[in-house]
């Protein structure tokens, strides 16, 4: 709770926190917030300007833009939540095993990580989707594949440094079992830092997901997703530019909120001791 208080002491971070919560609520209660079905096609109503009925107008298939925007939050947040959870699970297990076991196991796992780190992430993700086929599940799979190695490396480093700390050594001398030692004494030290990293990365991953969807490789139409909406709207840039504007703004605001939140979280957890002095 003290953490939350420190976190919310900054004005921008507080704003970001509110924005992120708002997006989360929108994602949870999207169907209640709009009376329109986001996938309800009505060609007689296509490309309408904003009105009382359709607050943000309709798209090229006569679907309500606001409803699609609200439901789009689900796709973005949902996919990122799954991605982050999967990455954490994978990297925590690989990273802590490598860091704790050391030796051959460590060497093998780290070379494995290096292999993944050799490729430019977005291009590898594209390749994987190209092989597996387009779709949300494969996007999630591809992004997890391309990002877990970064985390695994960092976690390994953290575990290595924690392994030699006094309290861990003490627990070890006291005869604590290996599994228990890692779970009780090492991972709790690793977790906060990884959480900060993950929060800082949420925005980045959202951009990945919507970018892939924009290319037509991610969420498949007609599902409402912000990247897909932008792709749908691109041919109307001359006539209906607002169709491009709203979904982009939604991505931008959400990503910005999570980035600011991650930044605030990092500052709150790790108040950098900038004394302004000359070190020794």
């Amino acid at each position, binding site marked *: 709770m003290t953490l939350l208080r420190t976190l919310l002491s900054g004005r921008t971070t507080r704003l970001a926190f509110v924005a992120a919560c708002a997006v989360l609520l929108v994602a949870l209660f999207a169907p209640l917030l709009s009376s329109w079905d986001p996938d309800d096609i009505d060609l007689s109503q296509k490309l309408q300007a904003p009105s009382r009925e359709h607050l943000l107008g309709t798209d090229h298939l006569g679907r309500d833009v606001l409803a699609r925007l609200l439901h789009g939050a689900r796709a973005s947040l949902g996919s990122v939540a799954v991605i982050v959870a999967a990455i954490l699970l994978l990297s925590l297990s690989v990273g802590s095993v490598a860091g704790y076991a050391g030796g051959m196991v460590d060497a093998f796992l780290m070379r494995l990580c290096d292999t993944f780190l050799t490729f*430019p992430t977005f291009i590898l*993700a594209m*390749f994987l989707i*190209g092989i597996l086929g387009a779709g949300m599940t494969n996007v999630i799979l591809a992004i997890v594949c391309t990002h877990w190695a970064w985390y695994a490396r960092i976690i390994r480093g953290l575990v290595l440094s924690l392994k030699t700390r006094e309290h861990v050594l003490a627990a070890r001398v006291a005869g604590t079992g290996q599994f228990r030692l890692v779970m009780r004494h090492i991972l709790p030290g690793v977790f906060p830092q990884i959480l900060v990293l993950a929060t800082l990365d949420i925005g980045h991953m959202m951009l990945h997901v919507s970018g892939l969807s*924009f290319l037509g490789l991610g969420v498949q139409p007609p599902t409402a997703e912000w990247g897909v909406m932008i792709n749908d709207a*691109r041919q109307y840039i001359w006539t209906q530019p607002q169709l491009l504007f709203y979904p*982009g703004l939604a991505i931008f605001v959400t*990503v910005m909120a999570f980035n600011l939140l991650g930044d605030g979280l990092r500052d709150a957890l790790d108040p950098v001791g900038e004394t302004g002095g000359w070190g020794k």
Partner: protein
Amino acid sequence: MAYLRLSQIPPTEEALVEARHMLGLDRSFPVQYFTWLGKALRLDFGRSYVTGKPVLDEILYYLPATLLLTGVSLLLTLVVSVPLGVLAALYKDRIPDQLTRAFAFFGVSIPSFWLGFLLVYLFSVRLGWLPALGRGGAAHMILPAITLSLMSISINIRFFRASVLENLHHRFVLYARARGVPERRVVGRHIFRNSLIPIVTAVGMHLGELFGGSVVVENVFAWPGVGRYAVTSIFNRDYPVLQCFLLLMTGIFVLCNLGVDVLYAWLDPRIRFGGEEQP
């Protein structure tokens, strides 16, 4: 065969068998893999399923456009982010720093495809100053390059700011001042050159992001590069093209990082001499 694919006429059984044999798909997986690997090592990535032409030739045809775009963007990134990062660090917590940091926050949060369309809308649709799509003269370059580099600029500003801040309080800076070395040289030589070292590595790693970003940007601006070609190939399930694309981009990426390592050693004598002790 390309005709059959594109016309979407259901292929006959004989055609399928013939195609499988021609593509070597009737052999076992390891055989296929090693055949492919052996050929790939000789830079033979096979032929495109769609056009039937050698994949490498196709990709090399599109590659210059992509390299041009990423190269210009990299240059733009360095030219903009280095001075801004230094400025932000030197004026830490004052107005130049706050403005720069706000800009960097916008930059890392904005989706490049959206930014691309916003720029097109503003400068092409509304103002009519710049061409919206395609490749042509220098004017065609402006919008895609800005779109592609904004993210890198923002990330590198923050990185460079942190790097300069770290060196700002180094003791060799204090000692240089204590010796009466003019402030311009303290900043320009000691702070700046030491801050550059981690930046070089970061920029090398960052090239991967630029390559990835160029795929999206090429699609926004109909830029005739490999990224756009690769996306088309995904829809056509043209796997040889994809494989070649991945390997080629990774190869360029690795080569660039090799270059970065050389540059790194040139900048940092500690790497060059391995910190050995003398007399």
